[in-house]
């Protein structure tokens, strides 16, 4: 049911401010007329700096019609603050709205403002999980989760890491989860990476590779972990060879393993082997990026000349 304000007694004291645009065509489309009228009332209350319960109702109405309109959200947050409203109630209202509009940025910004004011993230992890069930790679949701980790000091938190593992079990190819794990594990780390932690992280990523050898995410993660711990890539040489062995050039199971092996051989100054790996990538396993692999092979030569 469309909702209008011009014959509503609760709004009779407000003169709406319509948009100044020529050639406005509104006839015939009631939904558009409804939105347009609601907006003209919003302009009027904003011009009068009115903060009231009916303003909250009005913003709710406009958000239901068009949640991407950022001004509405900002004015709603100001109104909540001016009226000293119960913010838990706001979150309760916000949940279904967020679930309906997954790609909407403004909702997250609003949520962040409210939770920050509340000073507690109780229930937030469950809610984020619910959102991710609808779209497990949603950038806004993950950014928000990172904000929660930062705001409430969850770096190195075991519960947060275990939660990542649960998400990973649903989809081991979800790069957002890999990024979040890295963020949680290493984000708050000061000083050196301890051996135990290094081993745990490498083993976790290696298990994931075994499930899907061509999945790019855990390979990137392994490289990132080694770099963070300042370890040579040859640390995982035997592991890489499980998926790409130059002795068996017809049985390569992962281009990422071959790529890593090329780096390891380069690190070990075994340029011939590195070149063999890069040739296999350029000509057999990943020809769409042949120019890149050829570049890598050429830079081996120039590095050799410089040495």
């Amino acid at each position: 049911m469309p909702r209008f304000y011009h014959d509503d007694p609760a709004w009779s004291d407000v003169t709406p401010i319509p948009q100044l645009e020529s050639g406005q065509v509104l006839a015939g489309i009631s939904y558009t007329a409804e939105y347009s009228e609601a907006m003209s009332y919003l302009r009027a209350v904003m011009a009068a700096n009115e903060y009231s319960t009916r303003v909250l109702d009005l913003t709710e109405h406009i958000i239901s019609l068009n949640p991407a309109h950022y001004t509405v959200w900002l004015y709603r947050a100001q109104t909540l603050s001016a009226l000293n409203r119960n913010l838990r109630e706001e979150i309760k209202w916000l949940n279904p709205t967020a679930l309906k509009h997954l790609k909407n940025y403004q909702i997250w910004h609003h949520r962040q403002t409210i939770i920050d004011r509340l000073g507690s993230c109780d229930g937030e992890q469950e809610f984020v999980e619910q959102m991710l069930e609808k779209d497990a790679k949603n950038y806004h949701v993950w950014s928000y989760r990172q904000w929660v980790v930062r705001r409430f000091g969850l770096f190195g938190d075991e519960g947060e890491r275990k939660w990542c593992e649960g998400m990973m079990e649903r989809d081991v190819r979800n790069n957002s989860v890999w990024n979040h794990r890295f963020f949680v594990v290493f984000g708050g780390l000061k000083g050196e990476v301890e051996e135990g932690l290094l081993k745990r992280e490498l083993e976790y990523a290696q298990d994931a590779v075994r499930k899907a050898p061509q999945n790019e995410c855990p390979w990137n993660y392994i490289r990132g972990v080694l770099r963070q711990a300042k370890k040579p890539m040859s640390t995982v040489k035997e592991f890489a060879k499980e998926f790409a062995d130059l002795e068996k050039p017809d049985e390569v199971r992962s281009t990422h393993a071959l790529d890593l092996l090329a780096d390891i051989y380069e690190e070990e100054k075994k340029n011939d082997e590195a070149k063999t790996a890069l040739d296999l990538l350029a000509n057999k396993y990943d020809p769409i990026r042949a120019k890149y692999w050829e570049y890598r092979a050429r830079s081996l030569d120039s590095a050799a000349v410089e040495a």
Partner: protein
Amino acid sequence: MPTELRLHVDQHVRYIQSLDTRKGELEYWLTEHLRLNGLYWGLTALHLLGHGDALPRHEVLDFVFSCMHDNGGFGAAPGHDAHMLYTVSAVQILATLDAFDELEARVSGGRQEIGQYIAALQDLETGTFAGDEWGETDTRFLYGAFNALSLMGLLHMVDVDKAVAHVQRCANFDGGYGTSPGAESHSGQIFTCLGALTIAGRLDGVDQDKLGAWLSERQLKNGGLNGRPEKKEDVCYSWWVMSSLAMLNKLHWIDGTKLATFILQCQDPELGGLADRPGDMVDVFHTVFGIAGLSLLKYPGLEEVDPV
């Protein structure tokens, strides 16, 4: 490339021209918050197609100026709050139409005012930029600020070194960049970070081979590019990924012929416009980024585009 796959220039021009005549449709009103962006995208696409004059210059400028606020910022449409994104679009439109003199004629000291609006959005502690006075920060806004200021010759109004340091903090373990330190690598954000660094002349701090490898890894077997690992291909990433590779001089690391074929398959050959992938609904956003992608691939008959 199969011969039946060609760029339908006339259809695309007509599609973009038609966008502004749909005021009776609901969609037009619901996307009002994007109006100024959409205008910039449409104008850029027409320019690349060699039909830069297909939108009436005077009316475009009238509309742009009607979005301007006293504080130097621009809203998405008349009556909307000022925001970095729309301010950047406005400056880009003025630059495309070579209209900075008209700006000064209508608003004396206008460039300076816009510059001040943008400069005030820099977070002096971290160096990054907010989108508006409410404080959401994102490397997109930082890039937008650099882009607009450099178009007006006003980059000196902000702390460039601090902003560059912030971008460098957004580098991730996989070589890519995100919206803020620690946020997942994303092609669109890589474009904004590299763009900002290119404008500042500070690509020196980038691990260019590692980032180039990550970017080229975005090409899938069907020729299209995705925005993040293990995601689906999408025409708009043609632009984000390719322009990033171009800024690193590594555009040849992906297969251009396969990518051009993919983009051409995303056209609506009858009504014009491009979609995110073949068979989907077209929109102005994917139309401009598809065409800009083809331009970077030196598709015949298109004007050359600047990757930044």
